[in-house]
């Protein structure tokens, strides 16, 4: 069966990493883990492209095209002839 979620836009450049561990603290899906000299990209396919790691990496060792994975907003944007990536939405989720 297809898995649409095994690829994403997360890019990690370990040679830039200064091992501050910020990404391991902000990632809600444990994508990065502390390694030896730099962090390891442990579970790349769990990334939801929230952008937290890239926002908080002080040396731009991480790049990701962040956005909300919301089909409803994307379909609506597409129907209105707008760019699907411009869509943003949120349910009333109160995760915090």
């Amino acid at each position: 069966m297809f898995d649409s979620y095994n690829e994403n836009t997360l890019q990690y450049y370990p040679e830039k990493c200064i091992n501050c561990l910020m990404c391991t603290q902000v990632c809600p899906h444990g994508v990065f883990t502390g390694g030896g000299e730099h962090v390891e990209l442990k579970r790349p396919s769990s990334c939801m492209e929230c952008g937290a790691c890239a926002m908080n990496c002080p040396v731009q060792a991480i790049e990701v095209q962040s956005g909300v994975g919301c089909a409803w907003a994307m379909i609506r944007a597409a129907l209105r002839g707008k760019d699907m990536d411009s869509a943003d939405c949120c349910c009333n989720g109160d995760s915090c």
Partner: protein
Amino acid sequence: MDNKDTGSCCQPDSKADTDQFIRMIDLNRNSHAPVIRETTSTISFRDRSDHFLARLGVNRMGHIVEPGIYRLGNPDADSPVFVSANYTLSFDALRSSLAGIDCYILVIDTKGINVWCAAGKGTFGTAEIVYRIRWSGLSDIIKHRNIILPQLSAPGVSAHEVRRLSGFNVEYGPVRARDLPEYLKTHTATPEMRRVRFTFRERLVLTPIELTHIVLPTLIAALILYLLAGPFAAFIAILIAFTGAVLFPVLYPFIPTQDFSTKGLILGAIVTIPFAATIAAGSELLLWERIVAVLTTFLLTASVTAYLALNFTGCTTHTSRTGVKKEIFRYVPLMALMAVTGMLLLIILGITRLMEVI
């Protein structure tokens, strides 16, 4: 400009930077710091009814806390400072978790939106935090230079930028406010505290709002189906709505495929089974009519459930935009095809029945 961290006890040397920054984003510099408000960690009956309404989506924008500094317990100049969104559910989750802890809560203006969504939109962001730190005169109230943010605000906030612009150190607390007392013992979070889980209860809590979204379309569909094909078909429409809005959110992790669309198709097909059996056993229809009726039920139920399932991706906390986009291109044409075929069959069925009556 070179901005080193000057340590927590010294005056940050980035004041000029902050001034420039505030001018740049054109904030009203005449509005002066508000009084420090009092709050408690008790959740009253009124708070609870407010939470209930907020979850139902009633008065979406009315569940707002006034931005500013709040005092919880008896904090002093060394007490911790927590930053919160000005959505009542976020603020109340925070203060109720801090029972017995003397601290300050800095409520920033996220336009009444919860932490996670506001961070995604950028309203719970670097600029707002830097501004609120200055506006509230936080540096005169406390001696240290540390603020604790909810981890889920990280997509909107750049910790090193906040430090550069305000001199304040950002510390990301755990995902869930209720882990805060444990977190505060060492100021480190366990991997478990850092992970977002989408639990059974959290999924269940979302179902009322899912239902309110689709009440109107469902009633219209039920009415049309009632006129076309009788009460049985109308009942199926209501069942589809219930499947998409309640059963799916609660059950989807147990459906063995990865994609939401295929999960929806499978669930839709399963709920069709009892109806298909009922129709097949019914004797008032001809054989071909029964076959078409079963097919129609399956096509409509599965496609609509799959569509509702796909739309649920926005409420989850683990679907990437890349993945959702792939799903849309992969499955929406199929859903549309199924739905159109189903509708055509339904109309054919309705017409033949009408002819028979005449």
